[in-house]
């Protein structure tokens, strides 16, 4: 059942539509790639410029979070249709993990 393959023949209009959609996607990927490089540059510059670690560490963590989201949405297609459940599970998993680790770290080492 899960392995059934059905072959579809696409009409011309469908073909055009897909082509347009793909090029839009490509553009998205390129922009987010550029943004990611830029974020990485910021991180390196900050360290090279020798700011205080108390400033650098939180900012780098923040940048990392942004990177993860970009990565998930633009490269791993989380924004595409039919990924709602996946996204739901990932975010609830992250939420649970976040609270658990936060509580664990505070009670053990604080």
């Amino acid at each position: 059942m899960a392995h059934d393959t059905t072959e579809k023949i696409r009409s011309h209009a469908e073909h055009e539509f897909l082509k347009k959609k793909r090029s839009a996607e490509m553009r998205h990927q390129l922009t987010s790639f550029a943004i990611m490089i830029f974020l990485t540059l910021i991180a390196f510059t900050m360290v090279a410029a020798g700011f205080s670690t108390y400033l650098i560490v939180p900012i780098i963590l923040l940048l990392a979070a942004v990177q993860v989201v970009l990565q998930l949405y633009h490269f791993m297609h989380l924004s595409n249709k039919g990924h709602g459940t996946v996204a739901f599970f990932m975010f609830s998993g992250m939420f649970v993990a976040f609270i658990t680790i936060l509580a664990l770290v505070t009670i053990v080492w604080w």
Partner: protein
Amino acid sequence: MSSLAQKKGFGAVIWDYLTTVDHKKIAILYLISGGFFFLVGGLEAMMIRIQLMKAGNDFLSAGLYNEIITMHGTTMIFLAAMPLLLAFMNAVMPLQIGARDVAFPFLNSLGFWLFFFGGIFLNLSWFMGGAPDAGWTNYASLALASEGHGIDFYSLGLTISGFGTLIAGINFLVTIINMRAPGMTYMRMPLFTWTTFVASALILLAFPPLTIGLFFMVFDRLFGANFFVVEMGGNTIIWEHLFWIFGHPEVYILVLPAFGIFSEIFAIFSRKRLFGYTALVFATILIGFYGFMVWAHHMFTVGLGPTANAVFALATMIIAVPTGIKIFSWLLTIWGGSISFTVPMVYAVAFIPSFVAGGVTGVMQAMAPLDYQLHDSYFIVAHFHYVIVGGVVLAILAGTHLYWPKMFGTMLSEKLGMITFWFFFIGFHLTFFIQHFLGLLGMPRRVYTFGADQGWDLFNMISSVGALFMAIGVLVMLVNVVLTTVKNVRVGNDPWGDGRTLEWAIPSPPPFYNFAQTPLVRGLDTYWIEKMEGNKEGMVYAEPLGDVHMPNGSIIPLIMSFGMFVAAFGALYFLDDSKPWALAVLIIGLGITFGSMLVRSLKDDLGFHITKEELIEDAKRGGNTDGLK
């Protein structure tokens, strides 16, 4: 390859079960091996109760007693309760959502064999120099000091069987998300499917912390690491946290499917739609979520400080709210229903007061100051047996009666079932009710004997007699199974007469492809709706009759798991100077596992098709071929 073959010899049947990827046969494998471990754990329980029967008894030595309580807890939780619930999930959930199998049949079989070899490995410790003896919680300071290889059997065995459980959980999640029949929206899923879903999500999130903890434990003990060794800068409390971050969700992994089974039973035997279906679903989700926020209530006395204790005490008490919602929904389902007191229904009715008692003591323990008194006393033992036996085990016994006809095509005797019930139920309360008072009188748990001057003699004697009652109940049940199988009176699709969900619309046992045509679901309690509208076939169909694609069986899951089993022995003896061959065994074992993975990835296995003609033929013969090849 013809799929609808005829009767074969004994060897062929065995081979069929070793290679099967059919969820219904894997369910039977889980049922048999879970049942076996339940008997082993039960035997250990009887030995504990014999030892504690009278003051100063010397039936067991102190060391042996520690091994037996450890193995009793570990076996019951990981090797009996979980697999027995997985048996029902496998047998019923795909049928309830109108699917032909789970999403990954191969992984389903792999999950079973990993659990099986993990369990065997753990129990081999009895014959190979001593079982683990640091309690099922295996606290690190105790475990690291334990001599011999008992603890290593524990950590390696649970790692292997834990992988199996994790695989099963992921498989069920994907199945429920992707393989529901047309029309089966989330809010039309039967409650057992819902609880399977949430319990699987809990497995997915809760088992990784345990795996990490066990890995650390293995490395500390076998490869010279120091994660939990305080003198070397480690932290022994971290084990407790990791264990309970897993451990509390684990109790809900056990009890949610039990709730699911009882929800089905209440609706079927009250002949009513579940009262507050939506509330039951949301209560299930809420319990699943809160289950992760309360783990430190097992550690109030560790010294986490008043703030942490207060936060976790409050969080724990909140869980009682969704649980209460469920209890009231069940009561209102029975209310005004047309009730028939069959064996499953009797179990379900008995479950309510038993489980509520366990919930109430839970809330008492959640008050941190009071828990300083109760902790590590027999009160705790009474609490968790009320929830686990009064909730989970009663559900397993009820589910066995309820689903036996669907799994095997015969009905267990109601009369013997009632005898089992009364022995078990009375025995259960005799054994554990009195333990609350033993706890309040100061009797500590996990201590192998007590003195005659402590005034605990009578209560312990009563408790031991109760255990005997439970044992008699279980034996009667075994007799029941044997008699039923020997008589072999076959039953039809809906043997209880009041089935509401899709599994009762198809033959018992179902044909190996489950549904010749995928059903169309028109509401909650699909089969009931069709029955009420006078539909003789019990289903409407979502597709015309056509070829059905099925997966091939495979022996690879068994070999893969066997490789892990071999490798575990290598790891176990790795540091022993007298056993230089350990490294070789480790490498050979991993070689077997990775080799069979490689074979699996390189060899295409596209399954086979049952043709339309074969399906029509099969329907004429009653439509319950089991697909032996």
